[in-house]
């Protein structure tokens, strides 16, 4: 599971379409909308799905940009720590 915190900037703060579109997306939990910026948490099964969702959000009409502000490492990444321990 990949957990990211995103801030989506939108062109028009009054535009409800973007928020509705985001809300309907699986794995997205919206935070409290602050003017032209929408905070959200994106949970995806894996990195590929996370990246895809990010791209989909970015391509939504009315979206200016998507900033990532938080990333929780998945268990795979933690597993790499074990692999990188000294071998001698």
């Amino acid at each position, binding site marked *: 599971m990949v957990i990211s915190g995103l801030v989506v900037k939108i062109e028009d703060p009054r535009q409800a379409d973007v928020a509705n579109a985001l809300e309907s997306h699986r794995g997205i939990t919206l935070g409290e909308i602050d003017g032209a910026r929408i905070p959200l948490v994106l949970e995806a099964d894996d990195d590929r799905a996370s990246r895809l969702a990010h791209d989909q959000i970015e391509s939504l009409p009315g979206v200016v940009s998507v900033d990532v502000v938080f990333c929780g*490492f998945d268990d795979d990444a933690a597993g790499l720590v074990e692999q990188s321990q000294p071998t001698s």
Partner: protein
Amino acid sequence: MRVDRRSFLRASAMATATAAAAADATAAFRSENPADDIQWDKAPCRFCGTGCHVQVGVQGGKVVAIAGDQQADVNKGLLCVKGYHVGGILYGPDRLTQPLLRKNGELAPVTWDEAIDVFAQKVMAAPDRFAFYGSGQWTIPEGYAAQKLMKGGLSNNHIDPNARLCMASAVTGFISTYGVDEPAGCYDDLDACDVLILWGNNMSEMHPVLFSRVLDRKAKGETVEIIDIGTRRTRTTRYCQHYLEMRPHTDLAIANGIAHLLIEKDAFDKRFVEQFCNFRVDPNFDPQNREGANPLFGSPISFDEYKALVKPYTPEEVERISGVPAAKIRYLAERFANPKLRITSTWCMGMNQHQRGTNINRLVHGIHLLSGHFGKPGDAPTSLTGQPSACGTAREVGTLAHALPGGRLVAKPEHRQQCEALWNLPEGRINGAPGYHTVLMWEKFCTPTDEGGDISTIFVQVTNPGQSLPDLQKLFRNKQGLEDKFLVVSDVYPTATTELADLVLPAAMWVEKNGIFGNSERRTQQWFRQVMPPGEARDDTWMTIALAHRLMELGHPGMKDKDGNFIFRTTDEDGKEVPIWEWKHYYDINVDRALYEEYRPLTTMKHKNVAPYDVLVEHRGLRWPVVQQPDGSWRETRFRFSEFDDPFVEKGKEIQFYHSTTDDDRAQIWFAPYEPPIEEPDDEYPFWLCTGRVLEHWHTGTMTMRVKQLRDAIPQAYVEVNREDAREMNLRNGEQLLVETRRGKLALPAWIRGRGQPPRGTIFIPFFDERLRVNDLTLNATCPVSKEPDYKKCAARVRRASFTEIAKG
């Protein structure tokens, strides 16, 4: 525990996003949940020169989360895609964990004692043929230790950083204009400007958080006009109101065209120019034909001479040279002619990696000075750095072949004496002759000794020249087969450079060690070690000190000061020497703090006063000059040379260039002409080849290619091809092409509808992929003043690759 961690991460993600959306710097992302056992601490991001701060979450000795730091002025909680994966760079499965020495052609494990001894013996055999090749990713103490070892210990100036490949032209531009390096403005200009001009600067991919800062203003309804001047459409272009597509190298003509119009229309800022500026010319184009001028400082000219020199650059002539329509040149000039606007120019490699890099830097400073768009928030010409401490280490510590710390030069006797005094060295220890700059250093190393190749051993730290140098065959791979040449490489992963190394030293990286960086806006940033390095990996500063100590044991006299003490002698609170050359004692004291505090007095001569270490600990970086106030607090400076903010400007002066090269508090407005590039497309090689970076990868990809998410996003290099060119050649997306230049060839897939859109006759290849090394193709021509190579333009040809060529890569 897994569920707890997931819940915690989810809550932290939402708290961070909400705080960032509200831009509430006081909102903490830390969980108040007492069950949370993740430890958080600050660190600057490891990648570019923006200098974003992250919060690093550590659990069980591992980095498990990264968050944008809400308290950081630079990024206000935001991160780019690389930044939020920065923790992953520590955990690639092939970390180097023990020293390796080449024996019978193979790298074999050895102990640290043997590694340091073999290394020291090589240096002892020919100390004057030893060179140190460092980095803008060196922390300040790492660079300072290397500098002291070489110049103060070995009396050897063959030390240069990879910053020579990226920032040297910016340095010479600043010095020849203002008499002192580094920008007068800062990122606050991005918050205040009405017009942002990007000179060959793909900010949305290279400095995305800064670009986001500008877009954020637009999202809030503020008017910010963004003008992109470039040689190919990029991700940045999408967000710009104007795109001025120019032929490579012709920015020189565009800048002169603006200057010409400002004068012709009588629209320059006469008061500013008369009070604060002189005029200067590139000595090769001196109208008076005077001889003997220093190329860095040029020759003085009058305003009338300057006016006559820019006169030929009419909008129509600039259009003929650059391809940018005359109307757009006029529009740009009108922007500069409007005193009500605040104009910020930014640039990075587009202007620096340029055969006339110093001159184009000078010209852009010049149009800001000529128009008076300088010295007020939002009015600034500002270079951005590509590496996290190109400014802090390479430029401020002065780890260049001609420099000493704090803006000093090896050629100046008084500067040498100042360093000798601080380092308690006998007079005359520091050599007054500049050493070899990067390209020359590697050329000498890769040339047989009996043919003049007088560099025999190189120590590489924190960089990957085997991939990043231009013309790789000549400057790197020709080392193969030269048996008397010895290459020592400190790194964290196997790289193109370790492939040819004779000794590989495993290094600690980022939060596996203490560190201090200096970012693009003069901000010095400190962090503490937060996790242990894997295996036998150790700090680069320790390696330098251990080498120095072994050299002392072998009898090198330069490793002692004039009292007979080790040049890196470090004592504890009781004044007792701590044997920091022994790894087990290295962290008995804070060596970073000791070296930084030793270095700090050297920063005041050029008014680059950095803050005390203990003050940095409490901040997310401070911008120098940092000056103590009567109440004991330390105040940073946002706008240098401006009376309202810079404490070193005398009262009533308004603007004072107090390190003026003409000793009259004035900056220099330069003239330099457009000159054709050294290599241009012709019948044989009809395309322009440009190289660069992409959002997801940083430099040679040694770190980002080990992060699954980033590697998956852009898994390999490619060649961007213009759609019309592709149609004409009947090319399909993904088809393997062979790109050839006069120096080499490379097979790689075509990207026709990619993120970047080159114009007809131009191709672009990123340099992050170690399997597809574009620098086999690039030119080693350098700017004659800065000695920085030009990676942005050379002539190439393109055709479909055969199966054999694809197999060869």
